[in-house]
């Protein structure tokens, strides 16, 4: 009995000694620090692989997921990591140092700001698609919304994008052009919020992109906004300045793909030609 019991006792004493616990604590801190810092520096852990961080506006979610997948099959050494959000939010994050390699927005204002502050390489910026607004309504259009002026009706619960987002700004312009004054029930933080409110049935109508309408057309219907008052968003894409050469090459390849084979995919999702 003695020897194994003694060994067990000794190890218990070791594990509960104050010195051991201090060492453990410092080691834990060290590991955590390495984990945190390690994440900031060389993202490309494996010598054979490159990680391309693409920050894109929410409306590109489905199209870019498809494009990234197809791009990766053509370029197996590159892994595309997609990060979606509202254009204005992404722009803020990137200007505060978020580690993006490629950026794609729903309007030019955000990317112009990033170019001016040299965060994005202005020479790399090109317009790759356009989008336009549409009114989304519940399936079957139960409130019989026929045009943009119906959005002002008292019995229509309307949601729009926040004015800071491109979809919100453009909706406001379209409404102004149509001389319609509305009282939205909510100003969603991004266009996905607008879609979600209409899909869940909480809102009768929303102003979103035609691409959103087509993407969810099993759950909602849409009403066209005539081109006389509609705004076409220009979708720019560009490369962030502070990246490695390898990443820069991968980013160029990615953008070329978006403009080339990617264009068909974009068309399928409802985006217009640049």
């Amino acid at each position, binding site marked *: 009995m003695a020897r194994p019991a003694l060994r067990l006792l000794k190890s218990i004493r070791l594990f509960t000694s*104050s*010195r051991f*616990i*201090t060492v453990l*604590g*410092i080691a834990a*801190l060290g590991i955590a620090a390495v984990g945190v810092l390690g994440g900031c520096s060389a993202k490309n852990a494996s010598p054979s692989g490159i990680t391309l961080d693409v920050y894109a506006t929410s409306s590109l979610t489905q199209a870019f997921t498809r494009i990234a997948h197809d791009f990766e099959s053509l370029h197996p050494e590159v892994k595309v990591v997609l990060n979606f959000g*509202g254009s*204005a*939010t992404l722009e*803020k994050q990137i200007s505060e140092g978020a580690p993006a390699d490629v950026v794609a927005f729903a309007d030019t204002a955000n990317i112009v700001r990033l170019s001016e502050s040299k965060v994005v390489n202005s020479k790399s910026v090109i317009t790759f698609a356009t989008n336009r607004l549409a009114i989304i309504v519940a399936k079957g259009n139960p409130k019989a919304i026929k045009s943009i002026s119906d959005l002002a009706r008292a019995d229509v*619960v309307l*949601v729009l994008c*926040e*004015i*800071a*987002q491109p979809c919100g700004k453009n909706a406001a312009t379209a409404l102004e052009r149509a001389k319609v004054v509305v009282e*939205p*029930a*909510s*100003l*969603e*933080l991004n266009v996905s*919020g607008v879609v*979600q*409110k209409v899909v*869940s*049935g*909480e809102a009768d109508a929303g102003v979103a992109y035609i691409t959103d309408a087509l993407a969810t057309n099993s759950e909602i219907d849409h009403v066209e906004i005539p081109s006389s008052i509609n705004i076409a968003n220009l979708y720019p894409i560009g490369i962030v300045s502070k990246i490695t050469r390898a990443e820069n090459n991968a980013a160029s390849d990615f953008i070329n793909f978006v403009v080339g084979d990617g264009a068909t995919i974009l068309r399928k999702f409802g985006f217009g030609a640049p």
Partner: protein
Amino acid sequence: MTRQQHTLKAPTGIALLAAVCGVVIFLPLGAVVARVPWGHFWSTLSSESSTSAMWLSLRTSFITTVLAIVTGLPLAWTLAHREFPLKSIVRAICVLPMVLPPVVGGVALLYAFGRRGVVGSILYDWFNIQIAFTQSAAILAQYFVAVPFFIVVMESAFEQADIRLTGAARTLGARPWRTLLHVSLPSMKPALIAAIALTWARALGEFGATITFAGNSPGRTQTLPLAIYGSLENRDDGALTLSFVMMAISFSVLILLRQRWLGALRRGGV
């Protein structure tokens, strides 16, 4: 008194580990304070969107806290004093919103109280009442995420309460409500105050469930956290200013409450 505190040796390295925790909390908060644009502090604060967001937040979080006390106390009491089938499951469910991502909470609220929701559809189809996009929705969202904090703290307090106090009160002729209000709750003051503070703080900071269920409507559902997020998008410095205001309000309330805590403890001595 200092020598007394330092004579007994502390576990080795504990101060260092404590400092790490402190620094990680202080640093981001300090960074916000450092970058607040003091130049247009008051003009930002007195803008209509700022004042409406502040008042809305104070109003809704206050109402939420009151509702949490009135409904949460009975539930906490019941969980502490009564046995019933599946009690542990019921308790776990009551505490679940604490663990759920708030956005999920918002979605759940939609499924229950949205126009196509279980209860919401009845309200809408029969009474033409829509809860979403109203101040009530903001309150409901805050209540859902905050009341579990109240329940958890108070259930624990009830369980640890001295039954001789309630026993003495009952035998002296006090009926159950009088015993609860005049004997039990005063004896649990520190816990009660902590529960109220936690609940209110959680309600004040609520974002995910609010934006998903109540929407973002200035004056009705655009509480401070939503206004701050919107401000980030608008690229104005309102975000920093409003964040600082939130921090200042919460800080003062929590400091004030702590005095009361200590006072109650000192007085409740025996």
